[in-house]
């Protein structure tokens, strides 16, 4: 119990530190999310953002019904599809935003807050740099990725990859004059 208290106090301190860090002007021109965590841009399909380009409330009316979509047919919803539909995460009234369960609006650049609502354990690990990739400097500036840089939010399972070539079997190593034997 005490350990947990200390840990949560530590996390609070860490958050305070991050918040304090956010007040300083960012060194690079990269987008800086709230709380001072450096993140690259969300990986939008080209030409799709801002959503209000089409969803301006005039051309298209809000339709909350589950249906076969005329647009966005490339999206395959494999993220608890029985209990989830577009507007559970996308904001119907402010299309360039997402929203939390509480209704609070969230920028696309801070989508980790939305993911963190359900995946709290992953969110906690991500914050301290354990879940997900960090690059940069082990004792200085680090580059974070958003959840959606690795996990497609509509189909979040990490995509399979082609492995790079395996090592050469000893019996297949070519004998070369003056080279390896």
């Amino acid at each position, binding site marked *: 119990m005490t350990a947990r208290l200390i840990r949560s106090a530590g996390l609070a301190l*860490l958050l305070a530190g991050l918040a304090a860090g956010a007040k300083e002007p960012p060194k690079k021109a990269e987008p800086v999310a709230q709380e001072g965590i450096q993140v690259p841009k969300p990986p939008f399909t080209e030409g799709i953002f801002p959503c209000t380009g089409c969803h301006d409330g005039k051309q298209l009316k809000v339709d909350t019904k589950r249906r076969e979509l005329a647009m966005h047919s490339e999206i395959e919803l494999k993220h608890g599809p029985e209990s989830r539909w577009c507007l559970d995460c996308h904001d119907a009234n402010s299309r360039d935003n997402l929203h939390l369960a509480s209704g609070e609006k969230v920028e696309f650049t801070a989508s980790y807050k939305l993911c963190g609502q359900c995946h709290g354990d992953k969110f906690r*690990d991500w914050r*301290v*740099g*354990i*879940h*997900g*990739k*960090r*690059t*940069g*400097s*082990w*004792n*200085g500036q680090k580059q974070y*990725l958003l959840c959606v840089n*690795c996990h497609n939010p509509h189909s979040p399972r*990490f995509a*399979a*990859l*082609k*492995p*790079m*070539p*395996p*090592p*050469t*079997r000893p019996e297949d*190593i*070519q004998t*070369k004059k*003056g*080279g*390896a*034997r």
Partner: protein
Amino acid sequence: MTDGKLTSLPDHADEAPGGCGLDRRDFLGAGVAAVATALTGCGTLSKEEFLQHNFRELSKEEVLSVIARLEKEYKAKYGKDVKVGTTPPMPGVIFGYALDLSRCIGCRRCVHACVKENNQSRTPEVQWIRVLELDKEEGVNLQHAEQYYNPDEVPREGHFYMPVQCQQCKKPPCVKVCPVGATWREKDGIVVVDYNWCIGCRYCMAACPYGARHFNWGEPNLPPDQVNTETHYLGNRPRPKGVVEKCTFCVQRTRKGLYPACVEICPTGSRKFGNLLDKESEIRYVLENKRVFKLKEELNTQPNFFYFYGV
């Protein structure tokens, strides 16, 4: 033979004090180098190289001259300005590494990023990271490990992946067996090799329980256009034939504050690296909050490389 020597000696004694332009030290040095060339069969071994001491015994001036010589040699060989660094360990830093077995998908991006960063021989390719494909049914059972797997896509159903590289042991058996002291553990926990002092006996390879040391059986084949010019004397500088090499946690990067190349490339973020003495570091968080194990812990090698389950 004896006769020849006897007759030639007085001549030489007469000549030596005179002005033949070759003092005693130079003469002996050249003689030693000639003998060394004959003995080792390495035609390129220079006098300076042959007479060079163990890196740890060199004075500052000697280090500078060794670095200058190496950079000149690399320039001649690769036509590139290769920078050979000697950055010492940072005070208050002991490096630790943690690898998340629940995330690694065995894509081998790390293996090849390592080869590129550390100037390994390309044909045959020397790889410092070996990714093992293991059965989920069996768990971490090395009897069921496969390193030559090559499916179209990873991860394969029913398998998990375990990359193995130098574990940077606190009690490294490889260091213990080296008969000449050519390998040692630095203050920041990195086990390094002085390639100019290594005699190529490969005792260390036999002693290492992780198969983390690799031998250059032939002249390393490193195409000039693929040379990484940012190097460290104890790390990724191009190696000669007949020496042992190993992972150094990318000493040329990490002593400057950068992450190792394998951490930078990993697409799943399975690789975590940092200072074990820093309470705020990622590595400490892993050790304090996750299920962690050491590979072959029963051997008491005390690795600073840990495996953990992030979920």
